[in-house]
């Protein structure tokens, strides 16, 4: 992440700290890649199944 050095901004009365480097910082790999594989299939077999492309339908209608 570039210039995350002193990144924080305020909104209302909350301050959002953009570089929390406690236990919660992501491991950037490891089991994460398995999650990527899972999400890849989820995208493919949810949106891939339903997504509407009206091309053929339009051809029929016209």
């Amino acid at each position, binding site marked *: 992440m570039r210039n995350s050095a002193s990144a924080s901004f305020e909104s209302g009365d909350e301050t959002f700290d953009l570089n929390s480097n406690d236990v919660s910082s992501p491991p950037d790999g490891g089991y994460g890649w398995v999650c990527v594989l899972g999400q890849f299939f989820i995208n493919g077999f949810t949106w891939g199944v339903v997504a509407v492309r009206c*091309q053929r339908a339009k051809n029929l209608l016209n």
Partner: protein
Amino acid sequence: MCVSKSYSVYLAYYLSHNIFPEGKPLDFAFIGGFNFSFALLVAPFATLMTRLYGVRAPMFLGVVLLPSGFIGASFASKVWQLYLSQGICVGLGVGLIYIPATAIIPQWFSKKRSLANGICSAGSGIGGLIICFSTQAMLNSVGLVWSLRITALVVFFINLVATLLIRSRNKEIQPDQRMFNFRLLGSYQVKLLLSWSFVMMFGYITLMFSLSDYALAIGSSNSESATVAAILNLGAAFGRPLIGYASDRWGRVEVAGILTFTCGILVFVLWMPTTLYSVLLVFAFISGAILGVFWAVSCQSVLHIQNLQVTDIPRR
């Protein structure tokens, strides 16, 4: 994301075989639209379920609902039954699986987040291509009813396995899971990001939905214009991981800005002057790759406003 065509394969079949005589073409278009709208409308509910029962609870519900919609559609004999099954039920299923899952990747990745998101979003293009061609083949060999049921079975097992593979780090990071965090809307950065997404969508939708029509307009055949849509998908599948990698390396705002600008230029110098099918294919591939920038870069920020630790949101 919108270019894959499984539903429109069914749509064409419903219309050409007059399966639902009382159904008007507009009905079938609405049913497809319901997939999208219900998938997104269910977002607050999916987030609520995630908070109460963990990330897999809404996903399992979706894993059951999505194939149920297809099974239901295979028994449908009236158009309103199709609205409920292949429209609403499938849409809810998609939303319940997809929305909780999107919040997972950013919990695992920070520096390589765009790359990870890019690879994930390439899935929708590839899945769309596979499902589209296999649906067409099944309709020709086993007919409508069984191709709906086989689709349901395949979709059920793949999503079940994928859901079991995914693990959240909610225990480690205890994210903010308010359904909407309205305070975020007050921040300047979030407003800018949302405006960018809004404007970007004009270009995205226009390109996605008119490129293959343009192919017809310059005299290509139906199958050639379908190829343009497929090449657009293919470009997205290749482009998204690459854009993700570039964004992690050179900054997300920089890469998104340069790429969308390039795409704008290409529209004027490549798409508009050309009446050649081959040039159109080149343009489809490049723009397909570039358009992925929206999903690779912005989604991670926009979608996770709902479901991510607040300290993690406005990554550039």
